[in-house]
Protein backbone atom coordinates (compact mmCIF):
# COMPACT_ATOMS: atom_id res chain seq x y z
CA UNK A 1 0.00 0.00 0.00
CA UNK A 2 1.23 3.45 -0.94
CA UNK A 3 -0.23 6.35 1.04
CA UNK A 4 0.18 10.04 0.25
CA UNK A 5 -1.05 12.26 3.08
CA UNK A 6 -1.40 16.00 2.35
CA UNK A 7 1.80 15.97 0.29
CA UNK A 8 3.07 19.28 -1.05
CA UNK A 9 6.20 20.02 -3.03
CA UNK A 10 7.44 23.52 -3.63
CA UNK A 11 10.52 24.12 -5.76
CA UNK A 12 12.56 27.21 -4.93
CA UNK A 13 11.03 30.40 -6.44
CA UNK A 14 8.30 28.49 -8.27
CA UNK A 15 4.63 27.79 -7.89
CA UNK A 16 3.87 24.60 -5.96
CA UNK A 17 4.43 21.46 -8.05
CA UNK A 18 2.12 19.51 -5.74
CA UNK A 19 -0.34 20.88 -3.24
CA UNK A 20 -2.01 18.85 -0.49
CA UNK A 21 -2.12 15.57 -2.41
CA UNK A 22 -3.70 12.65 -0.54
CA UNK A 23 -3.92 9.25 -2.23
CA UNK A 24 -4.12 5.60 -1.29
CA UNK A 25 -2.82 3.06 -3.78
CA UNK A 26 -3.36 -0.56 -2.75
CA UNK A 27 -0.71 -3.18 -3.55
CA UNK A 28 -1.18 -4.61 -7.05
CA UNK A 29 -3.13 -1.60 -8.33
CA UNK A 30 -2.63 -0.07 -11.79
CA UNK A 31 -3.01 3.71 -11.65
CA UNK A 32 -2.71 6.15 -14.52
CA UNK A 33 -1.67 9.64 -13.46
CA UNK A 34 -2.83 12.16 -16.04
CA UNK A 35 -2.67 15.90 -16.39
CA UNK A 36 -1.21 18.62 -18.54
CA UNK A 37 2.49 19.43 -18.62
CA UNK A 38 3.51 20.91 -15.28
CA UNK A 39 0.51 19.40 -13.48
CA UNK A 40 2.85 17.54 -11.11
CA UNK A 41 2.82 13.99 -12.56
CA UNK A 42 6.62 13.58 -12.72
CA UNK A 43 7.06 15.22 -9.32
CA UNK A 44 4.66 12.69 -7.81
CA UNK A 45 6.76 9.82 -9.19
CA UNK A 46 10.05 11.49 -8.17
CA UNK A 47 8.80 11.73 -4.60
CA UNK A 48 8.15 7.99 -4.61
CA UNK A 49 11.66 7.15 -5.79
CA UNK A 50 13.13 9.68 -3.31
CA UNK A 51 14.64 11.75 -6.11
CA UNK A 52 12.84 14.64 -4.46
CA UNK A 53 11.63 15.18 -0.93
CA UNK A 54 8.21 16.67 -0.17
CA UNK A 55 8.04 20.10 1.40
CA UNK A 56 5.09 18.96 3.51
CA UNK A 57 3.14 15.77 4.20
CA UNK A 58 4.02 12.10 4.37
CA UNK A 59 4.51 9.27 1.90
CA UNK A 60 4.35 5.77 3.33
CA UNK A 61 5.15 2.61 1.36
CA UNK A 62 4.16 -0.59 3.15
CA UNK A 63 4.64 1.05 6.53
CA UNK A 64 7.93 2.78 5.60
CA UNK A 65 7.65 6.55 5.86
CA UNK A 66 9.98 7.53 3.03
CA UNK A 67 9.72 11.24 3.78
CA UNK A 68 12.05 10.58 6.71
CA UNK A 69 14.42 8.47 4.65
CA UNK A 70 18.17 8.84 5.29
CA UNK A 71 20.55 9.30 2.34
CA UNK A 72 22.13 5.89 2.89
CA UNK A 73 18.69 4.23 2.77
CA UNK A 74 17.79 5.67 -0.65
CA UNK A 75 19.55 2.90 -2.67
CA UNK A 76 17.60 0.25 -0.71
CA UNK A 77 14.32 2.02 -1.49
CA UNK A 78 15.20 2.28 -5.18
CA UNK A 79 15.89 -1.44 -5.34
CA UNK A 80 12.24 -1.97 -4.41
CA UNK A 81 10.94 0.47 -6.98
CA UNK A 82 11.54 0.06 -10.71
CA UNK A 83 11.55 3.26 -12.75
CA UNK A 84 10.98 3.64 -16.50
CA UNK A 85 11.63 6.96 -18.26
CA UNK A 86 10.55 8.55 -21.51
CA UNK A 87 14.20 8.80 -22.64
CA UNK A 88 14.99 5.17 -21.63
CA UNK A 89 18.23 6.06 -19.77
CA UNK A 90 20.10 3.01 -21.05
CA UNK A 91 23.88 2.69 -21.02
CA UNK A 92 24.82 3.06 -24.70
CA UNK A 93 28.06 1.11 -24.46
CA UNK A 94 26.44 -1.95 -22.94
CA UNK A 95 24.34 -4.64 -24.57
CA UNK A 96 20.72 -5.37 -23.66
CA UNK A 97 21.90 -8.21 -21.40
CA UNK A 98 24.52 -5.99 -19.73
CA UNK A 99 22.03 -3.17 -19.16
CA UNK A 100 19.73 -5.49 -17.25
CA UNK A 101 22.62 -7.25 -15.50
CA UNK A 102 23.99 -3.85 -14.48
CA UNK A 103 20.95 -3.16 -12.27
CA UNK A 104 21.37 -6.55 -10.60
CA UNK A 105 25.12 -6.06 -10.12
CA UNK A 106 24.53 -2.73 -8.45
CA UNK A 107 22.35 -4.50 -5.92
CA UNK A 108 25.06 -7.06 -5.22
CA UNK A 109 23.46 -10.08 -6.96
CA UNK A 110 25.72 -13.09 -7.45
CA UNK A 111 27.03 -13.72 -11.00
CA UNK A 112 25.24 -17.09 -11.24
CA UNK A 113 21.95 -15.48 -10.22
CA UNK A 114 22.46 -12.77 -12.83
CA UNK A 115 23.19 -15.33 -15.55
CA UNK A 116 20.00 -17.17 -14.64
CA UNK A 117 17.64 -14.20 -14.11
CA UNK A 118 18.53 -11.86 -16.98
CA UNK A 119 17.42 -14.22 -19.81
CA UNK A 120 14.15 -14.81 -17.96
CA UNK A 121 13.49 -11.07 -17.70
CA UNK A 122 14.46 -10.52 -21.35
CA UNK A 123 12.05 -13.31 -22.29
CA UNK A 124 9.30 -11.58 -20.32
CA UNK A 125 9.77 -8.43 -22.43
CA UNK A 126 10.12 -10.49 -25.63
CA UNK A 127 13.71 -9.47 -26.30
CA UNK A 128 15.68 -12.61 -25.53
CA UNK A 129 16.97 -12.66 -29.11
CA UNK A 130 18.39 -9.13 -28.65
CA UNK A 131 20.59 -10.02 -25.66
CA UNK A 132 23.81 -9.03 -27.38
CA UNK A 133 22.41 -5.97 -29.16
CA UNK A 134 23.43 -2.44 -28.19
CA UNK A 135 20.72 0.20 -27.54
CA UNK A 136 21.61 2.23 -30.66
CA UNK A 137 20.91 -0.87 -32.78
CA UNK A 138 17.35 -1.15 -31.44
CA UNK A 139 14.04 0.59 -32.17
CA UNK A 140 12.50 2.99 -29.65
CA UNK A 141 9.99 0.36 -28.55
CA UNK A 142 12.73 -2.21 -28.03
CA UNK A 143 14.80 0.25 -26.01
CA UNK A 144 11.83 0.99 -23.80
CA UNK A 145 11.27 -2.72 -23.27
CA UNK A 146 14.93 -3.10 -22.23
CA UNK A 147 14.39 -0.20 -19.87
CA UNK A 148 11.37 -2.01 -18.38
CA UNK A 149 13.40 -5.22 -18.17
CA UNK A 150 16.05 -3.36 -16.21
CA UNK A 151 13.40 -1.93 -13.89
CA UNK A 152 12.20 -5.49 -13.24
CA UNK A 153 15.68 -6.78 -12.37
CA UNK A 154 15.06 -6.52 -8.62
CA UNK A 155 11.54 -7.94 -8.86
CA UNK A 156 10.25 -4.60 -7.55
CA UNK A 157 6.95 -4.24 -5.70
CA UNK A 158 6.27 -0.98 -7.49
CA UNK A 159 6.95 0.10 -11.07
CA UNK A 160 6.94 3.81 -11.90
CA UNK A 161 6.57 4.65 -15.58
CA UNK A 162 7.08 8.31 -16.41
CA UNK A 163 5.73 8.99 -19.91
CA UNK A 164 7.11 5.64 -21.16
CA UNK A 165 5.35 6.03 -24.52
CA UNK A 166 6.29 9.69 -25.00
CA UNK A 167 8.89 8.91 -27.66
CA UNK A 168 7.08 6.01 -29.33
CA UNK A 169 4.60 5.58 -32.16
CA UNK A 170 1.08 4.25 -31.51
CA UNK A 171 1.94 0.61 -32.17
CA UNK A 172 5.01 0.55 -29.97
CA UNK A 173 3.15 2.55 -27.30
CA UNK A 174 0.46 -0.07 -27.15
CA UNK A 175 3.09 -2.83 -26.89
CA UNK A 176 4.62 -1.08 -23.90
CA UNK A 177 1.27 -0.62 -22.18
CA UNK A 178 0.42 -4.28 -22.66
CA UNK A 179 3.76 -5.18 -21.15
CA UNK A 180 3.02 -2.96 -18.15
CA UNK A 181 -0.34 -4.68 -17.73
CA UNK A 182 1.36 -8.07 -17.90
CA UNK A 183 3.77 -6.98 -15.16
CA UNK A 184 0.84 -5.68 -13.11
CA UNK A 185 -0.92 -9.04 -13.42
CA UNK A 186 2.18 -10.66 -11.91
CA UNK A 187 1.49 -8.60 -8.76
CA UNK A 188 3.53 -5.43 -9.22
CA UNK A 189 1.87 -2.10 -8.45
CA UNK A 190 2.15 0.11 -11.57
CA UNK A 191 1.96 3.91 -11.64
CA UNK A 192 1.82 5.25 -15.17
CA UNK A 193 2.21 8.98 -15.76
CA UNK A 194 1.03 9.78 -19.27
CA UNK A 195 -0.41 12.30 -21.71
CA UNK A 196 -1.78 9.61 -23.97
CA UNK A 197 -5.59 9.72 -23.73
CA UNK A 198 -6.10 6.73 -26.07
CA UNK A 199 -4.08 4.51 -23.81
CA UNK A 200 -5.73 5.71 -20.62
CA UNK A 201 -9.20 5.26 -22.07
CA UNK A 202 -8.40 1.80 -23.40
CA UNK A 203 -6.88 0.62 -20.12
CA UNK A 204 -10.10 1.02 -18.11
CA UNK A 205 -8.08 1.23 -14.94
CA UNK A 206 -7.97 3.76 -12.10
CA UNK A 207 -7.21 7.31 -13.29
CA UNK A 208 -5.91 10.10 -11.03
CA UNK A 209 -6.07 13.52 -12.68
CA UNK A 210 -3.77 16.31 -11.51
CA UNK A 211 -4.19 19.98 -12.26
CA UNK A 212 -1.76 22.62 -11.01
CA UNK A 213 -0.44 20.23 -8.39
CA UNK A 214 -3.84 19.19 -7.01
CA UNK A 215 -5.84 15.98 -7.42
CA UNK A 216 -8.97 17.07 -9.28
CA UNK A 217 -10.33 13.62 -10.03
CA UNK A 218 -9.73 10.05 -8.87
CA UNK A 219 -11.86 7.45 -10.68
CA UNK A 220 -11.85 3.68 -10.72
CA UNK A 221 -12.00 2.49 -14.35
CA UNK A 222 -11.80 6.13 -15.34
CA UNK A 223 -11.13 7.96 -18.56
CA UNK A 224 -8.83 10.74 -19.65
CA UNK A 225 -10.55 14.02 -18.82
CA UNK A 226 -8.85 17.36 -18.36
Amino acid at each position, binding site marked *: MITFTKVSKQYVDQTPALHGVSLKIPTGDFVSIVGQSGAGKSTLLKLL*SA*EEKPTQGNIVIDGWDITKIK*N*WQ*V*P*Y*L*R*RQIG*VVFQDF*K*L*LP*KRTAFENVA*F*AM*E*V*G*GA*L*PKDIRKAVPQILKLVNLLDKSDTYPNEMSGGERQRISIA*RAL*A*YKPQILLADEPTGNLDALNSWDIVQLLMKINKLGTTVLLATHNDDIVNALKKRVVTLNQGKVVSDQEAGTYKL
Partner: protein
Amino acid sequence: MIGISFARVLRNALRNFRRNVWLSIATTVIMTLTLLTISFLYAVNVLGVHVLSTIEQKVDIAVIFKDKTTPAQIQTIKKDIELRSDVESTRLITADQAREDFRRRHADDPYIEEALRELEVNPLPSSMFIIAKDPRFYETINSSLQSEKYAAFIDKVNFQNSKAVIEKMIRIMDVVKNAGLIITATFSLLVILIMFNTIRLAIYSFREEIDIMRLVGASRWYIQGPFLVESVLVAVMSVILSTSILYFSLHTMAPQINQFFFAGQNANFDIYQYFVDHWLQAIGIQFGAAVLLAVVSSYIAVRRYLR
Protein backbone atom coordinates in the same frame (compact mmCIF):
# COMPACT_ATOMS: atom_id res chain seq x y z
CA MET B 1 28.39 -9.78 -0.81
CA ILE B 2 31.12 -7.29 0.27
CA GLY B 3 33.72 -9.33 -1.63
CA ILE B 4 31.63 -9.28 -4.80
CA SER B 5 30.93 -5.59 -4.41
CA PHE B 6 34.67 -4.85 -3.95
CA ALA B 7 35.60 -7.02 -6.93
CA ARG B 8 33.03 -5.16 -9.07
CA VAL B 9 34.36 -1.81 -7.91
CA LEU B 10 37.88 -2.90 -8.91
CA ARG B 11 36.67 -4.23 -12.26
CA ASN B 12 34.75 -1.03 -12.96
CA ALA B 13 37.80 1.06 -12.03
CA LEU B 14 39.90 -0.82 -14.60
CA ARG B 15 37.12 -0.57 -17.17
CA ASN B 16 36.80 3.20 -16.59
CA PHE B 17 40.56 3.52 -17.04
CA ARG B 18 40.50 1.56 -20.29
CA ARG B 19 37.40 3.21 -21.71
CA ASN B 20 38.81 6.68 -21.14
CA VAL B 21 42.37 5.67 -21.84
CA TRP B 22 43.50 9.00 -23.33
CA LEU B 23 42.02 10.98 -20.51
CA SER B 24 43.57 8.53 -18.04
CA ILE B 25 46.96 8.98 -19.73
CA ALA B 26 46.54 12.78 -19.68
CA THR B 27 45.71 12.66 -15.97
CA THR B 28 48.74 10.47 -15.29
CA VAL B 29 51.02 12.82 -17.25
CA ILE B 30 49.74 15.92 -15.45
CA MET B 31 50.09 14.22 -12.09
CA THR B 32 53.63 13.10 -13.01
CA LEU B 33 54.52 16.69 -13.95
CA THR B 34 53.03 17.90 -10.67
CA LEU B 35 55.12 15.44 -8.69
CA LEU B 36 58.25 16.28 -10.67
CA THR B 37 57.72 19.99 -10.04
CA ILE B 38 57.33 19.40 -6.32
CA SER B 39 60.34 17.04 -6.24
CA PHE B 40 62.63 19.37 -8.21
CA LEU B 41 61.65 22.33 -6.03
CA TYR B 42 62.47 20.16 -3.04
CA ALA B 43 65.84 19.28 -4.61
CA VAL B 44 66.59 22.96 -5.31
CA ASN B 45 65.76 23.75 -1.70
CA VAL B 46 68.07 21.01 -0.40
CA LEU B 47 70.81 22.19 -2.73
CA GLY B 48 70.33 25.82 -1.75
CA VAL B 49 70.60 25.03 1.94
CA HIS B 50 73.81 23.05 1.34
CA VAL B 51 75.39 25.76 -0.82
CA LEU B 52 74.61 28.37 1.83
CA SER B 53 75.88 26.26 4.70
CA THR B 54 79.14 25.75 2.77
CA ILE B 55 79.51 29.52 2.44
CA GLU B 56 78.42 29.92 6.04
CA GLN B 57 81.38 27.80 7.17
CA LYS B 58 83.71 30.33 5.56
CA VAL B 59 82.36 33.33 7.47
CA ASP B 60 83.65 33.94 10.97
CA ILE B 61 84.70 36.55 13.51
CA ALA B 62 88.45 36.96 13.98
CA VAL B 63 89.60 38.00 17.46
CA ILE B 64 93.14 39.42 17.74
CA PHE B 65 94.56 39.22 21.25
CA LYS B 66 96.86 41.80 22.79
CA ASP B 67 100.54 40.80 23.04
CA LYS B 68 100.48 40.85 26.83
CA THR B 69 97.50 38.44 27.05
CA THR B 70 98.84 35.19 28.48
CA PRO B 71 98.03 31.78 26.98
CA ALA B 72 96.09 30.92 30.14
CA GLN B 73 93.93 34.02 29.76
CA ILE B 74 93.39 33.19 26.09
CA GLN B 75 92.29 29.66 27.02
CA THR B 76 89.84 31.09 29.58
CA ILE B 77 88.32 33.42 27.00
CA LYS B 78 88.14 30.56 24.48
CA LYS B 79 86.26 28.36 26.95
CA ASP B 80 84.04 31.29 27.87
CA ILE B 81 83.09 31.82 24.22
CA GLU B 82 82.57 28.14 23.53
CA LEU B 83 80.05 27.95 26.34
CA ARG B 84 77.78 30.37 24.50
CA SER B 85 74.72 28.74 22.98
CA ASP B 86 75.03 30.75 19.75
CA VAL B 87 78.60 29.63 19.01
CA GLU B 88 79.18 26.62 16.78
CA SER B 89 82.99 26.35 17.14
CA THR B 90 86.18 28.25 17.77
CA ARG B 91 89.66 27.86 16.37
CA LEU B 92 92.65 29.23 18.24
CA ILE B 93 95.92 30.19 16.55
CA THR B 94 98.59 30.98 19.07
CA ALA B 95 101.35 33.48 18.30
CA ASP B 96 103.83 30.62 17.81
CA GLN B 97 101.49 28.79 15.45
CA ALA B 98 100.89 32.01 13.54
CA ARG B 99 104.65 32.48 13.11
CA GLU B 100 105.06 28.89 11.96
CA ASP B 101 102.21 29.26 9.47
CA PHE B 102 103.73 32.49 8.21
CA ARG B 103 107.11 30.80 7.83
CA ARG B 104 105.61 27.88 5.99
CA ARG B 105 103.73 30.12 3.62
CA HIS B 106 106.88 32.11 2.81
CA ALA B 107 109.35 29.26 2.91
CA ASP B 108 110.60 30.22 -0.57
CA ASP B 109 111.28 33.82 0.42
CA PRO B 110 114.73 34.16 2.05
CA TYR B 111 114.20 37.83 2.95
CA ILE B 112 111.21 37.11 5.13
CA GLU B 113 113.03 34.27 6.85
CA GLU B 114 115.92 36.62 7.45
CA ALA B 115 113.65 39.34 8.84
CA LEU B 116 111.96 36.92 11.23
CA ARG B 117 115.30 35.73 12.55
CA GLU B 118 116.42 39.28 13.25
CA LEU B 119 113.33 40.11 15.25
CA GLU B 120 113.77 39.15 18.89
CA VAL B 121 110.07 39.00 19.66
CA ASN B 122 107.32 37.37 17.70
CA PRO B 123 105.48 40.18 15.85
CA LEU B 124 102.42 38.08 15.15
CA PRO B 125 99.58 38.07 17.71
CA SER B 126 97.50 35.16 18.95
CA SER B 127 94.09 35.06 17.33
CA MET B 128 90.85 33.14 17.53
CA PHE B 129 88.21 32.48 14.87
CA ILE B 130 84.62 32.07 15.96
CA ILE B 131 81.91 30.42 13.87
CA ALA B 132 78.33 31.07 14.92
CA LYS B 133 75.47 28.60 14.70
CA ASP B 134 73.55 31.07 12.54
CA PRO B 135 74.86 34.15 10.68
CA ARG B 136 72.30 36.22 12.59
CA PHE B 137 74.20 35.63 15.84
CA TYR B 138 77.44 37.36 14.73
CA GLU B 139 76.19 40.80 15.72
CA THR B 140 75.52 39.70 19.34
CA ILE B 141 78.79 37.79 19.60
CA ASN B 142 80.64 40.85 18.31
CA SER B 143 78.97 43.16 20.87
CA SER B 144 79.82 40.82 23.68
CA LEU B 145 83.51 40.66 22.54
CA GLN B 146 83.63 44.47 22.50
CA SER B 147 82.48 44.64 26.13
CA GLU B 148 84.59 45.85 29.08
CA LYS B 149 85.07 42.27 30.23
CA TYR B 150 87.43 41.49 27.36
CA ALA B 151 88.82 44.99 26.73
CA ALA B 152 92.09 44.28 28.56
CA PHE B 153 92.81 41.13 26.53
CA ILE B 154 91.46 41.71 23.06
CA ASP B 155 93.19 44.08 20.72
CA LYS B 156 90.79 43.95 17.83
CA VAL B 157 87.66 42.10 16.71
CA ASN B 158 87.61 41.69 13.00
CA PHE B 159 83.92 41.73 12.36
CA GLN B 160 83.27 44.79 10.24
CA ASN B 161 85.04 43.16 7.28
CA SER B 162 82.74 40.16 7.45
CA LYS B 163 79.67 42.16 8.38
CA ALA B 164 78.66 42.98 4.81
CA VAL B 165 79.13 39.37 3.71
CA ILE B 166 77.15 38.09 6.70
CA GLU B 167 74.28 40.48 6.15
CA LYS B 168 74.17 39.64 2.47
CA MET B 169 74.15 35.96 3.31
CA ILE B 170 71.29 36.36 5.77
CA ARG B 171 69.33 38.14 3.07
CA ILE B 172 70.11 35.44 0.47
CA MET B 173 69.14 32.66 2.88
CA ASP B 174 65.86 34.37 3.66
CA VAL B 175 65.17 34.90 -0.04
CA VAL B 176 66.01 31.27 -0.87
CA LYS B 177 63.82 29.94 1.90
CA ASN B 178 60.86 32.26 1.28
CA ALA B 179 61.06 32.16 -2.50
CA GLY B 180 61.34 28.37 -2.42
CA LEU B 181 58.27 28.20 -0.25
CA ILE B 182 56.27 30.65 -2.37
CA ILE B 183 57.30 29.06 -5.67
CA THR B 184 56.53 25.57 -4.34
CA ALA B 185 53.15 26.69 -3.00
CA THR B 186 52.24 28.56 -6.20
CA PHE B 187 53.26 25.72 -8.50
CA SER B 188 51.53 23.17 -6.31
CA LEU B 189 48.32 25.20 -6.29
CA LEU B 190 48.44 25.62 -10.07
CA VAL B 191 48.96 21.97 -10.76
CA ILE B 192 46.39 20.97 -8.16
CA LEU B 193 43.82 23.06 -10.01
CA ILE B 194 44.81 21.56 -13.37
CA MET B 195 44.76 18.09 -11.87
CA PHE B 196 41.39 18.67 -10.24
CA ASN B 197 39.90 19.84 -13.52
CA THR B 198 41.35 16.91 -15.44
CA ILE B 199 39.75 14.46 -13.02
CA ARG B 200 36.48 16.40 -13.17
CA LEU B 201 36.58 16.18 -16.93
CA ALA B 202 37.09 12.42 -16.70
CA ILE B 203 34.15 12.09 -14.34
CA TYR B 204 31.99 14.43 -16.44
CA SER B 205 32.15 11.88 -19.24
CA PHE B 206 30.59 9.35 -16.83
CA ARG B 207 27.81 11.61 -15.57
CA GLU B 208 25.12 9.76 -17.52
CA GLU B 209 26.26 6.43 -16.13
CA ILE B 210 26.42 7.87 -12.60
CA ASP B 211 22.86 9.15 -13.00
CA ILE B 212 21.61 5.72 -14.13
CA MET B 213 23.52 4.00 -11.32
CA ARG B 214 21.76 6.21 -8.78
CA LEU B 215 18.38 5.49 -10.28
CA VAL B 216 18.78 1.74 -10.19
CA GLY B 217 19.79 1.86 -6.53
CA ALA B 218 23.58 1.84 -6.55
CA SER B 219 25.12 2.66 -3.19
CA ARG B 220 27.43 5.63 -2.80
CA TRP B 221 30.43 3.32 -2.48
CA TYR B 222 29.49 1.41 -5.65
CA ILE B 223 29.38 4.68 -7.63
CA GLN B 224 32.32 6.47 -6.03
CA GLY B 225 34.54 3.45 -5.41
CA PRO B 226 35.74 2.92 -9.01
CA PHE B 227 36.73 6.58 -9.33
CA LEU B 228 38.65 6.49 -6.07
CA VAL B 229 40.39 3.24 -7.04
CA GLU B 230 41.18 4.67 -10.49
CA SER B 231 42.63 7.77 -8.81
CA VAL B 232 44.90 5.66 -6.63
CA LEU B 233 45.94 3.72 -9.75
CA VAL B 234 46.81 6.97 -11.54
CA ALA B 235 48.67 8.16 -8.43
CA VAL B 236 50.76 4.99 -8.18
CA MET B 237 51.64 5.09 -11.89
CA SER B 238 52.56 8.77 -11.63
CA VAL B 239 54.80 8.14 -8.61
CA ILE B 240 56.61 5.34 -10.46
CA LEU B 241 57.07 7.55 -13.52
CA SER B 242 58.14 10.69 -11.68
CA THR B 243 60.49 8.79 -9.35
CA SER B 244 62.19 7.15 -12.32
CA ILE B 245 62.59 10.48 -14.12
CA LEU B 246 63.72 12.26 -10.95
CA TYR B 247 66.42 9.73 -10.00
CA PHE B 248 67.63 9.39 -13.57
CA SER B 249 67.89 13.19 -13.94
CA LEU B 250 69.64 13.66 -10.61
CA HIS B 251 72.06 10.82 -11.35
CA THR B 252 72.93 12.42 -14.70
CA MET B 253 73.18 15.97 -13.38
CA ALA B 254 74.84 15.36 -9.99
CA PRO B 255 78.50 15.67 -11.20
CA GLN B 256 77.73 18.93 -13.05
CA ILE B 257 75.82 20.32 -10.07
CA ASN B 258 78.70 19.43 -7.76
CA GLN B 259 81.21 21.02 -10.13
CA PHE B 260 79.11 24.17 -10.54
CA PHE B 261 78.35 24.87 -6.89
CA PHE B 262 81.15 23.27 -4.92
CA ALA B 263 84.23 23.32 -7.17
CA GLY B 264 87.25 24.73 -5.27
CA GLN B 265 85.16 25.07 -2.11
CA ASN B 266 86.83 22.13 -0.40
CA ALA B 267 83.31 20.74 -0.01
CA ASN B 268 81.36 17.98 -1.64
CA PHE B 269 77.62 17.40 -1.94
CA ASP B 270 76.08 14.74 -4.12
CA ILE B 271 72.40 15.57 -4.62
CA TYR B 272 71.73 12.13 -6.16
CA GLN B 273 73.27 10.42 -3.13
CA TYR B 274 71.17 12.65 -0.89
CA PHE B 275 68.00 11.44 -2.63
CA VAL B 276 69.21 7.82 -2.46
CA ASP B 277 69.83 8.19 1.29
CA HIS B 278 66.48 9.93 1.80
CA TRP B 279 64.49 7.73 -0.62
CA LEU B 280 61.70 7.08 1.83
CA GLN B 281 61.19 10.79 2.38
CA ALA B 282 61.45 11.62 -1.34
CA ILE B 283 59.07 8.89 -2.52
CA GLY B 284 56.86 9.28 0.55
CA ILE B 285 56.27 12.97 -0.19
CA GLN B 286 55.38 12.14 -3.79
CA PHE B 287 53.14 9.23 -2.90
CA GLY B 288 51.37 11.17 -0.15
CA ALA B 289 50.87 14.19 -2.42
CA ALA B 290 49.69 12.03 -5.35
CA VAL B 291 47.18 9.93 -3.44
CA LEU B 292 45.84 12.93 -1.53
CA LEU B 293 45.52 14.99 -4.69
CA ALA B 294 43.85 12.25 -6.72
CA VAL B 295 41.52 10.95 -4.05
CA VAL B 296 40.39 14.39 -2.83
CA SER B 297 39.86 15.64 -6.41
CA SER B 298 37.83 12.64 -7.49
CA TYR B 299 35.87 12.57 -4.23
CA ILE B 300 34.81 16.20 -4.65
CA ALA B 301 34.17 15.82 -8.37
CA VAL B 302 31.94 12.73 -8.03
CA ARG B 303 30.10 14.14 -5.02
CA ARG B 304 28.72 16.81 -7.32
CA TYR B 305 26.84 14.15 -9.28
CA LEU B 306 25.65 12.27 -6.23
CA ARG B 307 23.52 15.04 -4.80
